[in-house]
């Protein structure tokens, strides 16, 4: 049994709000599947799972804000004992805000007032909480497939007793469900309790599940969590987070800055030629070339690609380019383009488009937020000529690109008008010195002069 916990999606995050569950108990998930939507001070993020297995109990209800590290759900991992045939995935229960309160069943012969007082804390005045049952009863209910919420307890204070469960189990024989149907139900997200079986003895079969899934797809999807905060609140919170982070960066990181002007004639010519031959949907923006050149450059100069933590530099496990994307409502995020140095340009372009779209929709994945090894900021489309950025800690460098602009330029001893771009580097002087930074910018320059090799 593994715990799915509130992740830390940035150096500055210490709590997060669970907005929405993307899985349901009993559902099969693979490592990397998005599990939940978490809202942080900066944005709304889809969080992936690090285990492969079956979703067990969901411990936290959407809308709640919990500290980083709080268990959100239990996941039965595949490494555990193989599932016993016929064992049901945990039943879905009704809404439940907290883990079941620790309740000791009062021995019936002990009417001590102290016991009553204790109970008064645990139980609402009505005296009966549907799901309140001792572990043995809960286990029995799970085994027999009895929904505790539908039972009337006959025990003290309306508690559900073991015999209540057994009676209910005897009254309502569990319709058989074929293994394939069960598997499909998990895959398609169909609640088996709602499926009527057409097989022998009313067995639920694969076809029944498929029909149920088709019917459900037609119905509108509901149940999205109420946004926990208003947009204004969020903007304020994001501003505050950025403020803290950038202040920390400027305070702690001794920045040094380098800049160089890159002749983009070859790159722009190549791009024009490429785009003329490509369908509209597959055309490249200059940004794709700049990002790829930056990714290849830091691969050559790995001292800039990684993190400064605990007074030492740790190299990143790949070139995950943080791409700074400004949000419409203000603020910005810099999610990762994973392994950008190895992406062919068309792939990089489509990943970039996808990333920007999802940033604007607030649908980032956790790994995209926490993984970047170096940030690239490209303010060219805003018209600026150069950008001297502030490093995103604990990263150690940031590459900035300005607008591609025609400038008078000395070429082969003559004055010519050439498209150029100003590339800058902000780097952490604790991790590297100017010479290393210069190598990186020179590499960016060299790469952009040979666009066909990008």
């Amino acid at each position: 049994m593994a715990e799915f916990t509130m992740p830390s999606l940035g150096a500055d995050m210490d709590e997060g709000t669970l907005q929405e569950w993307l899985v349901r108990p009993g559902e099969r998930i693979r490592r990397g599947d998005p599990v939940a939507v978490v809202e942080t001070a900066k944005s709304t993020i889809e969080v992936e799972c690090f285990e492969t297995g079956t979703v067990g109990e969901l411990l936290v209800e959407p809308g709640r804000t919990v500290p980083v590290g709080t268990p959100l759900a239990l996941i039965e991992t595949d490494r555990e004992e193989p599932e016993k045939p016929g064992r049901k995935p945990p039943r879905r229960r009704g809404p439940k805000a907290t883990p079941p309160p620790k309740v000791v069943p009062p021995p019936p012969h002990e009417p001590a007032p102290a016991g009553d007082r204790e109970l008064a804390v645990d139980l609402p005045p009505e005296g009966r909480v549907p799901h309140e049952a001792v572990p043995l009863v809960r286990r029995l209910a799970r085994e027999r497939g009895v929904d505790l919420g539908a039972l009337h307890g006959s025990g003290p204070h309306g508690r559900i007793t073991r015999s209540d469960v057994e009676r209910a189990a005897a009254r309502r024989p569990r319709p058989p469900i074929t293994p394939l149907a069960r598997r499909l139900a998990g895959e398609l997200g169909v609640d088996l309790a709602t499926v009527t079986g057409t097989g022998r003895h009313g067995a639920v079969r694969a076809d029944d599940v498929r029909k149920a899934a088709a019917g459900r797809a037609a119905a509108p999807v509901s149940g999205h969590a109420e946004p926990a905060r208003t947009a204004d609140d969020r903007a304020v919170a994001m501003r505050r987070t950025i403020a803290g982070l950038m202040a920390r960066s400027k305070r702690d990181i001794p920045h040094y800055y380098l800049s160089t002007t890159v002749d983009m004639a070859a790159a722009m010519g190549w791009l024009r030629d490429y785009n003329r031959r490509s369908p509209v949907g597959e055309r490249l923006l200059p940004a794709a070339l700049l990002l790829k050149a930056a990714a290849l450059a830091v691969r050559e100069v790995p001292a800039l690609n990684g993190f400064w933590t605990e007074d030492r530099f740790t190299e990143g496990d790949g070139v995950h380019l943080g791409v700074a994307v400004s949000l419409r409502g203000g603020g910005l995020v810099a999610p990762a383009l994973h392994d950008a140095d190895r992406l062919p340009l068309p792939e990089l372009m489509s990943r970039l488009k996808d990333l920007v779209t999802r940033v604007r929709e607030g649908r980032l994945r956790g790994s995209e937020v926490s993984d970047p090894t170096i940030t690239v900021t490209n303010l060219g489309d805003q018209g600026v000529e150069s950008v001297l950025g502030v490093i995103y800690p604990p990263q150690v460098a940031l590459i900035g690109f300005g607008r591609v602009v025609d400038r008078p330029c000395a070429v082969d001893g003559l004055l010519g008008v050439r498209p150029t771009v100003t590339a800058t580097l902000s780097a952490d002087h604790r991790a590297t010195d100017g010479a290393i930074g210069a190598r990186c910018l020179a590499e960016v320059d060299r790469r952009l002069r040979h666009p066909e090799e990008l």
Partner: protein
Amino acid sequence: MGTSRTDERKTTYREALREALREAMRSDDRVFLMGEDVGRYGGCFGVSLGLLEEFGPERVRDTPLSESAFVGAGIGAALAGMRPIVEIMTVNFSLLALDQILNNAATLLHMSGGQLPVPLVIRMTTGAGRQLAAQHSHSLEGWYAHIPGIRVIAPATLEDARHMLAPALADPDPVLIFEHGVLYNASGEIGPPAASADLDHAAVRRSGTDISLITYGGSLPKVLMAADELAVDGISAEVVDLRTLRPLDGETIAASVTRTHRAVVVDEAWRTGSLAAEVSARIAEGSFYDLDAPVERVCGAECPMPYARRLEEAALPQPSDVVAAAHRAVD
């Protein structure tokens, strides 16, 4: 047309086996045949008819009525470098040689640390359907399939009867060939060797999408008939012929069940502890989450095989039983 294809002439299962024996003896001097009545009588089921005349008494040897002795002699010959083919009349009699097969043939390679392979081929008849009663009619190949160290094959088609002997002889381990008695008279044209004459793979004899009918040997023709009937009812049945009972080709079984999500295992042997039980268990182990119905088994009645014709029919899996089981799984 002046030419005819010589490999597609009309023949029988019996003749196919004989042709395979003849080819084996012609191509390798080390191959010889021995068993009760294989020489002058031409084999109890007529498989070796004419081989004595062609190859002489040195290579087609009649043996006394002593299964343990002549199977043991075969093991000795194999150890000495020969390639013996030993014929035991029926599987019931083979139990007299079980000690030789299990304690010697199957174990020597292991116990000698890999120094003593036993390249022996043992042929025997199995199965019921010819009114030969309890002592000649049982299907005990599942018992042999239980033994590690030997290979157990069950050719069900003319092609397999013709083409499985050569790889069996080439196998360094003892190979038991089970020939179902009702198949000997099966006739038809022999096509090229089935997909793999390598003895390692089951064969899908008919493709289908709704249910897998898994069987072998003498039950294959009945199961194919059942599949025809099911097709009339609109049920598309896939027929898997196991061909090799040990080692079982679990992958082909699993692949078929993954396609169809339902399985009927047909085995003429007694149900309890049968090969059908092994196949069903494998499906449960490996393909549980692909099953959309319980695995059905159609097996022989758990009684000594009756002599009376109607009773014998009743004791054996019939196409109608397979059809009924398939309907239980699909409907």
